[in-house]
């Protein structure tokens, strides 16, 4: 049973320079206890899509143009995008936990770390101060913060980057949500700390039976964590596949390009690093063709005229591309 | 505000390429182009922002009135006509359009006096700010560049002035040195300088500690180069913005001083003097005090609106974030 089913999500931004079509028809589903990785470059729409699920994008200038997001909340199956404000607040924190990218700016500098964790528990779980404090200390301990009891009264600036991110994770799981959405949580951390956080998330996921959506631009991180991966480009889903299938047999030219661009240990020393030619798509134009076409070495005239739909390739493997990478020729339908 | 890195000298090339004759300085040419483009962009931004446009228009009206006062004012500001004294503005029964805003107790035309008053206000504001900015710029640069004890001494003095209520100093000094336009200008210029010292010094320190000065130094740029290429361009924005607001403040202070009888001598038509005179007969001839006040507000409004716009335009951080 899918815990989250998103269909045709479209988000745009009204700016002075015009309308930015940030997300153009994103659909995916997520099973309970599944980990979904969302990969894409900056501007691909990955963060905007996930944040708009809970309407965390400021509207204005943002605007939800279309989409449904059916979710198994504690009070039944609801469309996240159609919820009233009150019901939405109930879902936030209680059923879905968020971990953001920059832990320093994502924590209130004037509030103790303990209070920030306890806050949502007091609201959603109706815990009194003593109970909330007790559970917060347990959480701090669980996410690996030593001397949790003393640290309750510390302020964010008294923690290091990795520890702050642990606090953010504690905030996210405090009320026992079923879904954890993490938006590039390790991007701002150095590599060793990154590994620790990943391990923490993995162990929490297994212990609490969480479904996880992990957004990243780092293919390596996603490979070690996700069950399935979605690759986004130009506000659309380019490819969607189980993790092994994606990395071994990519079916979208963009994914192929991304994987080829990864420096590999077994590469020849003198070999030049490969990159994807061209520049990111112009999101001011409404999508009328494949957004990757200008940079795609396989593109042909159909790619520039139509937006490619998602073609099913194999078991749970889809690619939005008119070119059949396996057969090395345009798809016949 | 972006600053350009000093460019290395161009190498001579055989065929086509940039003009390398000794007189063509690539830095200067590009600076001209940059200034021209910046001016055009600024003009476009101004036209888009109603507040800024209104502010600039109001200010230009005041400047116009000051410059063309003899042509605009129907009477001489000092001309007394005791038979017409205490006449209300034109729209009252006892008023006439010959004296549109009425007359004061000595029969002087209020409208003309207000128009001529722009001269005093603008002079005080402009000269005062110029003096303050000049002193502030020099002292701030010295403090920022030399640091150490020089810096401490200068900032100590500046902080002293900034800590004491401005008005207190101004009032005491004005009382001591007597009434004259020069005195007023000097007082304002000197007492407002600390603000500019602080701003300049702050900017110098910020840039000194920033990365690109290190890079500039590492490729051989001398102190002079750093000063002109990096520090001064970055100073222009904050200084001009603050100057606009301080000019408006000085117009206020002049009026306040005049109100207390400490500004320019009573024979010179200043808005402050008019308010002071008007206060005496507030109940019987309220227009004498009311309309100069409107003039002050009008000017201050213009300068504040324009200053707000300037600040938004010149602060790259705010521009990026939008409002």
């Amino acid at each position, binding site marked *: 049973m899918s815990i989250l089913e998103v269909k045709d999500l479209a988000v745009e931004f009204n700016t002075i320079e015009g309308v930015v079509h940030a997300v153009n028809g994103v659909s995916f589903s997520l099973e309970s206890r599944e980990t979904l990785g969302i990969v894409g470059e900056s501007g691909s729409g990955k963060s905007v899509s996930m944040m708009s699920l*809970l309407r*965390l994008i*400021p509207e204005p200038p943002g605007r939800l143009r279309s989409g449904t997001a059916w979710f198994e909340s504690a009070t039944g199956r609801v469309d996240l995008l159609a919820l009233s404000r009150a019901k*939405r*607040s*109930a879902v*936030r*924190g*209680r059923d879905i*936990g*968020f971990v*953001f990218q920059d832990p320093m*700016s*994502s*924590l*209130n*500098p*004037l*509030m103790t770390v303990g209070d920030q964790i306890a*806050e949502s528990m007091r*609201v*959603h779980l109706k815990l009194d101060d003593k109970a909330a404090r007790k559970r917060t200390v347990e959480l701090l301990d669980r996410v690996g913060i030593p001397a949790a009891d003393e640290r309750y009264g510390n*302020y964010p*600036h008294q923690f290091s980057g990795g520890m702050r991110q642990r606090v*953010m994770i504690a*905030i996210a799981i405090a009320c026992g949500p079923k879904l954890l959405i993490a938006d590039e949580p390790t991007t701002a951390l150095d590599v060793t700390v990154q590994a620790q956080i990943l391990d923490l998330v993995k162990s929490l996921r297994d212990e609490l039976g969480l479904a996880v959506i992990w957004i990243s631009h780092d293919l390596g991180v996603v490979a070690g964590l996700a069950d399935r991966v979605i690759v986004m480009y130009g506000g659309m889903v380019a490819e969607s596949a189980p993790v092994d299938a994606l990395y071994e047999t990519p079916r979208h030219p963009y994914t192929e390009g991304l994987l080829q661009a990864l420096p590999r240990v077994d590469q020849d020393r003198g070999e030049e690093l490969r990159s994807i030619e061209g520049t990111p798509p112009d999101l001011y134009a409404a999508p009328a063709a494949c957004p990757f076409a200008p940079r795609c070495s396989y593109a042909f005239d159909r790619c520039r005229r139509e937006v490619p739909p998602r073609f099913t390739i194999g078991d749970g493997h889809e690619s939005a591309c008119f070119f059949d990478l396996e057969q090395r020729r345009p798809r016949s339908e | 505000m972006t600053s350009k890195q000093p460019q290395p000298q161009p190498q001579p090339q055989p065929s086509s390429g940039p003009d390398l004759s000794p007189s063509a300085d690539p830095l200067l040419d590009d600076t001209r182009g940059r200034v021209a483009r910046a001016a055009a962009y600024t003009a476009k931004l101004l036209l888009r922002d109603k507040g800024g446009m209104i502010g600039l228009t109001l200010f230009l009206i005041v400047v116009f009135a000051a410059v063309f006062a003899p042509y605009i004012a129907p009477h001489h500001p000092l001309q007394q006509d005791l038979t017409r004294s205490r006449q209300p503005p034109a729209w009252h029964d006892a008023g006439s359009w010959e004296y549109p805003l009425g007359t004061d107790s000595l029969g002087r035309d209020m409208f003309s006096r207000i128009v001529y008053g722009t001269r005093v206000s603008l002079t005080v504001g402009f000269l005062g700010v110029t003096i303050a900015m000049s002193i502030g710029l020099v002292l701030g640069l010295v403090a920022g560049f030399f640091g150490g004890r020089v810096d401490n001494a200068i900032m100590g003095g500046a*902080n*002293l002035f900034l*800590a*004491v*209520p*401005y*008005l*207190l*100093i101004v*009032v*005491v*000094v004005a*009382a*001591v*040195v007597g009434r004259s336009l020069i005195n007023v200008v000097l007082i304002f210029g000197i007492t407002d300088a600390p603000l500019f010292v602080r701003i300049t010094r702050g900017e110098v320190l910020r840039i000194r500690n920033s990365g690109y000065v290190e890079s500039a130094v590492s490729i051989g740029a001398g102190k002079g180069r750093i000063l002109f290429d990096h520090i001064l361009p970055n100073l222009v924005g904050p200084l001009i913005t603050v100057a606009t607001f301080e000019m*408006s403040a000085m117009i*206020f202070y002049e*009026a*306040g001083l005049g109100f*207390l009888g*400490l500004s320019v001598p009573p024979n010179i038509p200043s808005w402050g003097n008019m*308010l002071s005179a008007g*206060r005496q007969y*507030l*109940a019987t001839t*309220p227009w004498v*005090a*009311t309309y100069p*006040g409107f003039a*002050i*507000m009008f000017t*201050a409004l213009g300068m*504040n*609106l324009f200053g707000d716009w300037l600040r938004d335009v010149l602060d790259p951080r705010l521009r990026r974030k939008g409002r």
Partner: protein
Amino acid sequence: MQRYLLSRAVQSVLLLFGVIVLVFFLVRLTGDPARLMAPREASAEDIAEIRALMGFDRPLPVQFAEFFTGAIRGDFGNSVHYRAPAMGMVLDRLPATVELALTALLFAVVVGVPLGVVGGSNPGSIWDSIARGLGLVGQTVPNFWIAMIFILVFSVNLGWFPSFGRGHWNSIVLPAVSLGLFPLGQIVRLMRSAVLEIRGEDYIRTAYSKGISDRRIYVAHVFRNAAIPLVSMLGVQFGYLLGGSIYIETIFSWPGLGRMIAESVAARDFPLVQAVAVFTSLVVVAMNLLTDVAYALIDPRIRYDK
């Protein structure tokens, strides 16, 4: 934090010494203060007599030493016109000014903070326009002028409020509103821009993602963070309040320090001028120090600075 506060306290004391020096020299700027104190028609002998009486004929270092030591003790000599100890007179008038300044500030805060917060929370709304308008009004209206307009409208024409003195319970209304208009404008602008900026911060987004109520987000997150610049600004306003009281108290014949400054300066009563100047500066410096203390207490980043 202790070290920071200690250094600020030391700075304040040094500042005060600097003020005493400054006042000393300001009064003697022209070189011959006796001439200023004497009436126009005074003869040279009259002026010399005044000079001897006031001690201006003694060498400068001696004058300064006496002034400085006296100032520290609070002894500024006797007022020339009132023939009473200058400091005593200052202290007598102090409560009236404190009352006026605090009322003006209270007015500015009570009206300005909510308006600024509402305006900043709803950009583009009517409240936002009102907030920005009020901010502009505060900046562009001269307080001495609006005081006169208030008197005209509310005292002379409507008769709602008295126009002078401190006698009635409602005597303070017009003076306080006139004086408080400028701080009101500053506070509205500050709160509006602070709230606007804070609302765009990441930690507000985190707060929303937790599903807590809007009200709680405002109180615990937005407002708490906006309080810091507010506290800073309130401290700064004291300098303005004491300076502006010179005008307001003069116009309303309010028996406070401001009016005393205006009168003593006009009368060239230098002992009194010195007393008032030093004392007023003392108050401002003290308030600034207090503000820094409050700031350090509120902001944990300063409180727990290693």
